[in-house]
């Protein structure tokens, strides 16, 4: 197998025995990026020079016997993570020239482990989108079918894994932005419980929903990455002090007696047939492994998308008020007066989807509509959370599809925002409830497109979903298939 195809744990073994150096691995990855990037478009910024220096430092650390499992592993970050000294755009023209003066906690933690940063990954602008088409830096293509979207908003993070352009990546998930692209690209992606990973240095979209998580080749890698970035951070007052377990220790392969909930609202008529079949096969597999099934109901599922598009846009309209052309980012050169400068800078800097969401959020928060829209949505959020709390009294894990269909065609939904929003129908409720969930490869459509299975856990139940995902992975071979690119 080529170096660029290895998982973190496989590459770590090669590095530890000295069979491969981090410098060799990093060079192999950079060469791979160069050869496939024109077909995929996963990256916004590449950092080959600093990557090679980091690889050499990692090799010295490995030689000294001080290596972490992530030392010398080449990875890449969604361009939403601030990286000191490296341009960070968040997929937006308004930040096309922004070089952050400090780094996100998650990147600091990975860097301290000795990771090598290959570059910054493409994404929907300000993480607003389900297809990566709202990026100001070009389209990212799905490595399984380059006429299709990779999913979004962490589309570059998933495409880079599927195209073997990085050993692992980090994304963020506000309404499904890790799980949906992971599902569409045949990767493993985990959205941790809100508060599990620090949001410090992660450019804010909807602060009560945003969460950082890994996209990887397999569940073991996912557990390794989560363990490295999770934990309390005094710089994010919403991060929690709950201790971080060794997530890899949870991967026992044993799901006997595990109670899996099947919510009837997620297995609706109109679900894509290939997705339906993959779910049925997955349920069979878990049955063979000794898991038990409980039919459950999450009665407010149908209200989640509406709730999300009020809460997320309201928070976004407030968070994005900071882009005013004063302190950083794009400033319009032809403005007359301060207000005109701010208005022109924003109007030139933001793309259509970002403007649309700022408008929706501003409307929902505006005088006369605040109670009818924003407060109403916050109340329905309470009901949606209650659905999950009640369900988890009887089950350990909830199994659902990640997305109602496999990856759609580039351009297919760009003219109909509501249809685009509805593609996140199965992932959004988890963000509103604040709990954790992961996407695991669970099959392919008739056209050869990956289909993901969603495992939803209790708040801070990451170990349980990782164990369930790992057991499934051991019993199936979906995660070993590779996109031909």
């Amino acid at each position, binding site marked *: 197998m080529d170096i660029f195809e290895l998982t973190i744990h496989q590459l770590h073994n090669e590095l530890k025995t000295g069979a491969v150096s981090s410098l060799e691995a990093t060079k192999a990855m950079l060469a791979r990026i160069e050869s496939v990037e024109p077909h995929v478009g996963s990256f916004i910024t590449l950092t080959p020079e600093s990557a090679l220096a980091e690889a050499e430092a990692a090799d010295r650390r490995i030689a000294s016997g001080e290596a972490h499992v992530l030392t010398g592993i080449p990875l890449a970050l969604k361009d939403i993570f601030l990286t000191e000294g490296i341009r960070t755009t968040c997929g937006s023209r308004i930040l096309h*020239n922004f*070089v952050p*003066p*400090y780094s996100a906690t998650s990147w600091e933690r990975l860097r301290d482990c000795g990771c090598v940063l290959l570059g910054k990954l493409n994404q929907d602008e300000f993480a607003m989108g389900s297809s990566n088409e709202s990026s100001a830096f070009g389209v990212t293509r799905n490595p399984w079918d380059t006429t299709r979207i990779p999913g979004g908003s962490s589309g570059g993070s998933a495409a880079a894994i599927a195209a073997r352009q990085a050993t692992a990546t980090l994304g963020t998930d506000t309404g499904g932005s890790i799980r949906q692209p992971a599902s569409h690209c045949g990767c493993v992606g985990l959205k941790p*419980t*809100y*508060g599990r990973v620090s949001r410090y240095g992660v450019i804010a979209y909807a602060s*009560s929903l945003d969460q950082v998580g890994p996209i990887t080749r397999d569940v073991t890698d996912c557990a390794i990455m989560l363990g490295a970035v999770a934990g309390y951070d005094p710089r994010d*007052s*919403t991060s*929690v002090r709950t201790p971080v377990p060794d997530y890899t220790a949870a991967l026992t392969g044993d799901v006997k007696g595990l109670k899996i909930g099947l919510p009837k609202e997620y297995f609706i008529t109109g679900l894509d047939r290939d997705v339906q079949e993959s779910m049925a096969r997955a349920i069979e597999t878990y049955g063979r492994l000794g898991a038990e099934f409980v039919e459950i109901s999450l009665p*407010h599922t149908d*209200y989640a*998308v*509406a*709730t999300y*598009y*009020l809460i997320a846009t309201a928070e976004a*309209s407030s968070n994005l*008020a900071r882009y*005013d*052309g*004063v*302190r*950083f*980012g*794009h*400033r319009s050169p032809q*403005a007359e*007066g*301060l*207000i005109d*400068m701010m*208005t*022109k800078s*924003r*109007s030139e800097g933001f793309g*259509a989807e970002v*403007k*649309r969401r700022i*408008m*929706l959020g*501003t*409307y929902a928060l*505006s005088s006369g509509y605040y109670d009818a*829209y924003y*407060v*109403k*949505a*916050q*109340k*329905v*959020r*309470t*009901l949606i*959370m209650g659905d999950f709390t009640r369900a988890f009294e009887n089950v350990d894990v909830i199994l659902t599809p990640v997305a109602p269909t496999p990856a759609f065609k580039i351009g297919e939904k760009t003219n109909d*925002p*509501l249809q685009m929003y509805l593609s996140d129908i199965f992932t959004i409720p988890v963000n509103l409830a*604040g709990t954790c969930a992961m996407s695991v490869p669970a099959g392919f459509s008739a056209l050869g497109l990956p289909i993901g299975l969603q495992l939803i856990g209790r*708040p801070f139940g990451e170990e349980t979903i990782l164990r369930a995902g790992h057991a499934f992975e051991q019993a199936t071979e979906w995660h070993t298939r590779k996109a031909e690119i």
Partner: protein
Amino acid sequence: MKITVADVEYVARLARLALSKAETELFAGQMDAILGYVDKLNELDTADVRPTSHAVPMENAFREDAVNPSIGVEKALANAPDRVDSFYRVPKVIE
């Protein structure tokens, strides 16, 4: 129509966005469709439901009021579109 062109123009002003005529018309139609869709929340009786602003129950997060190193003027101003000495420079505020 729930959302008129005048509504869009008003909200755009609040959000400090200058929309073209075509954008204004497009957004009026799209926002109308989206807000029509979110109206389904009114099917639910939420009179006795408390709103949730945050998924994880939390107390206030306090810290010691201690002096810590900061990034400094040069680093803070490094991304400034325009500056003079240790200040950001902006167009005239009072006209």
